[in-house]
């Protein structure tokens, strides 16, 4: 007897891969970037589908295929999730201490740097009666 295609395994794998690769998209919005709940939701949905598929493959092997590729795809999905979790919950938090950064009440260190039009600009020229926000950012890439 021909056994049925075990679609939840494939669907779960695709959703889990989407959980990883959609990070770049969701990172554009603070609400899905500050905490990556959208990606975690995708990973969780993928895991649920993979589990359904595995239960089918191992519980009713006479009806459904997928014992071997189900395990392989689940292992890959778990690896991708592990990578995601490591990057998001460990690497992103490895920020320097910045113990010597200027503190409240201290004078901001003087500097002079070229702006986007190659014009040299000093901090003194940037000060304004309403204050100035200096935003250090990681750069554009």
């Amino acid at each position: 007897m021909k056994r049925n295609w075990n679609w939840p395994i494939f669907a779960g794998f695709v959703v889990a891969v989407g959980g990883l690769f959609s990070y770049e998209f969701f990172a554009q919005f603070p609400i899905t970037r500050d905490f990556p709940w959208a990606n975690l939701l995708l990973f969780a949905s993928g895991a649920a589908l993979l589990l359904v598929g595995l239960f089918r493959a191992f519980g009713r092997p006479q009806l459904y295929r997928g014992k071997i590729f189900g395990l392989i795809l689940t292992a890959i999905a778990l690896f991708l999730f592990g990578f995601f979790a490591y990057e998001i919950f460990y690497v992103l938090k490895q920020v320097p201490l910045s113990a010597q950064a200027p503190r409240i009440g201290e004078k901001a260190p003087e500097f002079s740097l070229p702006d986007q039009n190659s014009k040299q600009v000093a901090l003194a020229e940037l000060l304004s009666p309403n204050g100035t926000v200096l935003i250090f950012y990681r750069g554009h890439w």
Partner: protein
Amino acid sequence: MKVVGISVDSVEVNHGHTQKMHFTFPLLSDADASVVRRYDVLHRGFGPKGNDIARPAEFYVDANGMVQWVNLTENIAVRARPEQALAAIDSVKSGHRD
């Protein structure tokens, strides 16, 4: 209130980025990261090519050049949102700090 961006990007990259995004505030190029170091906000090896870049950080400086508010994120993905920064700066300006 003035806004100024500082990164290790080159003048050329900043010029292109400003044109594309229609920024009206200055983007300063600290290519050798000397100012980033002076403010102790260097993030070693965390650039796209393993280069040294700035960590995300915001300093609000008053008319006399005194620092009045600092925001150093503990997670690179979590940045100060404009409304949070403005609220914090407003409270500093009106004198009650929290």
